[in-house]
């Protein structure tokens, strides 16, 4: 579904990703781990099409189509979702309005009726233990770190993507919130591919990855199963740099 071949990415003439290849199929959960500055978030941003990042060489294919041909909103409508590490706030725009517009845009003709939408929204908000007062607040405006992450996962559940990129979704979450958010992620993985970007083993205790990749200096240097995450937790990254 997602196929990245020998990707090179720069920001303002500084190369961040230096020859990365990765394949994610439907139903697979991949985790990428690595130190700060290794290029993990850049990878998520460039796949979603952030304008600050320039693909200098290599290819990214999504569902058999070159991603460079798709605008950001077209990627979302094609089934791609990014849970942002630092989601933007949109002052003055109520969460309820935003979610309704977003669902209508992404799901198009399959978008639920107003009544069905409310029902779906209520069910997902209950599962994520979110109060309905959330809906009248402005998008991410004055939200705590945990509230922002719950809103990201709520959007993911409503948009029902085929590829979910989750950039440090576990940061800022306490233990209870981590469990709730993980349940949300697990509910989509049977029918979607998933790329988890994380620093810590703790998210992977709740969401079992099929593959764990280690990223150092813009490249994937090692790939393994869930046991690799545990090994990194105990040994750190130094042994992979030698």
């Amino acid at each position: 579904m997602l196929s990245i071949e020998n990707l090179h990415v720069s920001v303002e003439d500084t190369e961040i990703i230096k020859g990365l290849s990765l394949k994610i199929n439907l139903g697979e959960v991949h985790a990428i781990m690595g130190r700060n500055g290794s290029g993990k978030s850049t990878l998520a941003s460039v796949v979603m099409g952030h304008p600050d990042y320039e693909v200098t060489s290599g290819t990214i294919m999504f569902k058999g189509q070159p991603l460079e041909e798709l605008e950001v909103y077209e990627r979302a409508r094609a089934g791609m979702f990014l849970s942002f590490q630092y989601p933007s706030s949109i002052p003055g725009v109520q969460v309820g309005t935003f979610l309704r517009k977003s669902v209508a845009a992404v799901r198009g003709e399959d978008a639920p009726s107003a009544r069905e939408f409310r029902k779906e929204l209520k069910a997902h908000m209950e599962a994520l233990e979110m109060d309905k007062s959330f809906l009248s607040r402005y998008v991410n405006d004055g939200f705590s770190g945990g509230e922002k992450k719950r809103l990201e996962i709520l959007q993911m559940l409503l948009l029902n993507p085929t590829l979910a990129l989750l950039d440090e979704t576990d940061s800022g979450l306490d233990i209870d919130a981590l469990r709730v958010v993980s349940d949300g992620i697990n509910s989509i993985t049977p029918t979607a591919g998933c790329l988890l970007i994380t620093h810590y083993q703790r998210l992977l205790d709740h969401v079992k990855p099929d593959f764990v990749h280690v990223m150092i200096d813009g490249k994937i240097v090692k790939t393994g199963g869930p046991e690799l995450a545990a090994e990194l937790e105990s040994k750190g990254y130094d042994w992979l740099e030698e």
Partner: protein
Amino acid sequence: MMQYPQITIPPRSEHLWRYTPWKRVHPTKVEEMPKADPIKFSHGEESEMHDSEEIARAFIHSVSPICRKITLSDETVEVDLRCSGHICAGEMSIESKGHSNLVIRISGDAGWAGLRVTGSVSGTLSIAYINDLASDAHFLKCEDWEILRDSTLEFATLSAGGFLNKSDIRFDLIEKGSEIRTGIASNGYGSRHDDHHLEIKHSVGHTDSSLVMHATCNDSSHSVGTGLLTITEGADGSDAGQVFRNLLLSEKSRAEAIPELEVLADDVKAAHGAASAPIDVNQIHYLASRGLSNEEASALIVEGFLMDAFREIKSETVVSALRTRLLVHLECLMNG
């Protein structure tokens, strides 16, 4: 008292007239007092208003054929002000007790409209002004408000109509415990010129004020926001803040945001700020990643930016009226 013809034309060096001089505001030639048709008020009793030595107020008073008084007491009232004819004018006095909401919609196809308002608040009054005049109208509005002891005025304006607008609004916190919360949202498009001058005076201590003005500037529009915050000598314990923000949507649009402070008391909190910037690319990217095209994302950000001017307004009635009208206005603009 001097009447309009005796009043000296103010120079452009005056803060109030810097960006929209009186010559440009006057409907004909500055020395003239043209005949005006009355604004049609949907509510109010016949009344009279005192004259003024301030030029714009004196002019409206001189030409206005109508004055209405609206008295509110624990109620929600919607008032339509219909402006038609070549030149039309009116005066309105508002007195409020208890907890009231007032939604005032100004509409019509007048070439020039002048409105003078005086108001007194005891209790809590929340006002929504909706300027929905025809897109070629010139509009002058002058207001003077007094807020009494332990009373609150919430004052929200959606400025979306008219070609050239000049408003001069003055609030006086005259007794302890009084508070004013002001939100102004101005949507600039075409060659629209929208000038808001707001003066807030803390005449006594232990009074609070906040002023937020948000202007979106598209095409070759020009937005002006000038504020004068005065905390008089001895008005200790006052808390005041003013912020002007402009969202620049085109290269040809212009925005001026000039807050001024005059603080003569020692123990006060007074803050002011002004900022002009284009739409944040990260906001666009975030919304695009949720399936909205660039055009849809920009429209939603503009809508939010304008609504955010009313974040200090607690009255749901007022905020809901403003939101409803803003959505209709933006949809009309998008559909040409």
